[in-house]
């Protein structure tokens, strides 16, 4: 008989072994899928690895794919740490992109490099503002934040599309005749282009580095401060927190705002680092916010692990584009990515529970 029981203690090595094991299992299952669809697993995996992680060109593309995932991963991890399930990273990123682009356009080239911090602050404000809606509902009316934050993603997607496709908004380019027929966002001024760090032939986007700095800041906040201590206690036992006189409501507002702000900066980074315009189509097609949830779960909400997992997943995503072709449908790439996530989340179970192969009670009776 197989029984699943809760672990009393969680050995430290498990937290490393299980994610790695999960990835291995995922590749195992993927091998079967590839064989069943008449693809060579060895060849596919090698190409996946090469285009994701080998050579500076692959790595640079991976960094670009990973940058938004770092932000949305941190966004989810920040909130999930307190058992606050902010699923709204997606919409918060859109709004951050809207606010960030507005700041960039408004400042033009007048203030030079000041455009960059202004975009970061504006993006953070946009993300935080959207996240505060489910936060207030949760804190004061006990509304389930999963539902509200998820629904706001759709609202945010409609808003960002409206700004470019259905209105003559501040963000829309109306300078030329073609731009009026084919709607697109205004190009951001040069001052709103974020720099990148060149290390040898590697190009690290400013947003990625900023994400790393934020990750370190979050780690510091959550492990070294009174604020983080309260978040830990509330996340573990809300009753113990109220017993200890902690102000849970304020913490819900603060953590959601912080979570949304980080996603919002991710949106501003999309404007400043890569797209240089408000690009609703590109942003809504990418699904960064949802990927961020998975990344946070894989990283077990650890900010540094979020960075690592984001790069890993960014690599797989980037390789996925390269793998797609006549003989390799994009659906198969999706299956592959899905399998990795599925196995990783399934592996979570093994960290908290253990599987025990016990003799059936009849056998035990016979023995007794």
């Amino acid at each position: 008989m197989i029984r699943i029981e809760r672990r009393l203690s969680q050995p430290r090595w498990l937290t490393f072994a299980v994610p790695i094991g999960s990835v291995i299992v995922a590749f195992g299952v993927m091998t079967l899928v590839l064989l069943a669809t008449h693809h060579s697993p060895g060849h596919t995996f090698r190409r996946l690895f090469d285009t994701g992680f080998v050579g500076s060109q692959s790595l640079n593309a991976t960094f670009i794919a990973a940058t938004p995932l770092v932000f949305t991963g941190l966004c989810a991890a920040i909130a999930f740490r307190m058992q606050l399930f902010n699923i709204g990273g997606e919409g918060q990123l859109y709004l951050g992109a809207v606010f960030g682009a507005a700041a960039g356009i408004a400042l033009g080239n007048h203030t030079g490099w000041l455009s960059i911090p202004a975009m970061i602050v504006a993006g953070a404000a946009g993300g935080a503002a959207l996240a505060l809606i489910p936060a207030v509902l949760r804190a004061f009316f006990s509304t389930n934040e999963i539902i509200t934050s998820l629904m706001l993603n759709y609202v945010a997607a409609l808003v960002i599309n409206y700004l470019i496709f259905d209105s003559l908004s501040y963000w829309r380019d109306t300078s030329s005749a073609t731009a009026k027929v084919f709607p697109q966002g205004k190009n951001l001024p040069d001052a709103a282009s974020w720099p990148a760090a060149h290390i040898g032939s590697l190009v690290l986007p400013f947003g990625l580095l900023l994400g790393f700095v934020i990750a370190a800041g979050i780690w510091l906040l959550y492990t070294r401060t009174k604020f983080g201590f309260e978040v830990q206690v509330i996340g573990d036992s809300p009753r113990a927190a109220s017993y200890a006189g902690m102000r849970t409501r304020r913490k819900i507002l603060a953590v959601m705002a912080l979570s949304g702000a980080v996603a919002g900066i991710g949106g501003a980074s999309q404007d400043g680092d890569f797209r240089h315009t408000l690009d609703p189509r590109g942003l809504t097609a990418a699904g960064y916010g949802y990927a961020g949830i998975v990344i946070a779960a894989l990283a077990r909400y650890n900010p540094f692990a979020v960075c690592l997992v984001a790069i890993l997943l960014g690599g797989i995503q980037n390789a996925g584009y390269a793998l797609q072709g006549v003989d390799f449908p994009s659906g198969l790439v999706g299956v592959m990515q899905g399998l990795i996530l599925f196995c990783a989340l399934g592996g979570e179970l093994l960290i908290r529970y253990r599987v025990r192969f016990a003799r059936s009670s009849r056998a035990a009776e016979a023995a007794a």
Partner: protein
Amino acid sequence: MLTPQEADSLFHTVRVMAEEGRTVIFISHKLHEVKAVSDRVTVLRCGKNVDTVETKDATPRSLAALMVGREVALAGRIERETEIGQVVLEVRDLWSVGDRGDDALRGVSLTVHAGEVVAIAGVAGNGQRELAEAVTGMRSSSRGDVTVDGRRLHAGDAREAIRAGVAHVPEDRLHTGVAPSLSIASNVALKSYRGKELARGPMLRLRAIREHAARLIRRYDVRGGGPDLPARQLSGGNLQKVVLAREFDGAPRVLVIASPTRGLDVAAIETVHRYLREAAAGGVGVLLISEDLDEILALADRIGVMYEGVIVGELDAGETTVEEIGLLMAGGARE
């Protein structure tokens, strides 16, 4: 929870079912309900069948005696040596809404003096938990005052209660008394992390927190692990020691302590009782909420009995009997 009218109609239905020839097993710890519906009463105590009697032969007093059991264990009682001081806790006409939306407290008044142990006896679910929570600020009250050392506390403000010197050992020690997945050190700092000793500005002094925990672990003889062990891995007795260590460390004026020995082994019970006596001897006003009458009789100076959200009787611990308490606990004061 049923209203009295609903209860009456339920009892009627039960009687009708019985008259139709069906067998009804009715489980209750309220004597008037038992008297109202049953033909025969079996009394269980500690998972054992104590006695079965015909309802018409039973009196509330005799049933109460069976329920609470054996002779009063006055042997466990230690008479106090220290003098009782001035009033440290005063609760006046306290009303509070319970989790089910009904009035769990319906006008509770009591006083506790420095160095005194006041016990609240009662069958679980008669408002004791709500009383502990309302006094310690975990639960809001709809009417009435809680005054500590002459200072009136705001309803539902646990932080203010803590600052006023109200320590609280909750009945659910694993999920309220501690954050189970966090370390012992974190749990020892659960209330004091805001103070100067353990924090500097917004930052925690992690080393100070660990050392503080290690000191208390030694002083209170917590066994099973060091400061870094998650609290959930401690045994019940050691977990309770962690909670007590933290609460006493805050130099409280008032200690609200609920079912402090439930689920503990004999040795741990003794330790908890010793700490309680020491606290009272040190001038802390103790409000002990317990269902264990032996414990109450061994520790308390005065006893209030709670039934359906009110204190139905106040007794002097030196002069009362288990039967008298038991009768009040089961609502016998109604008859």
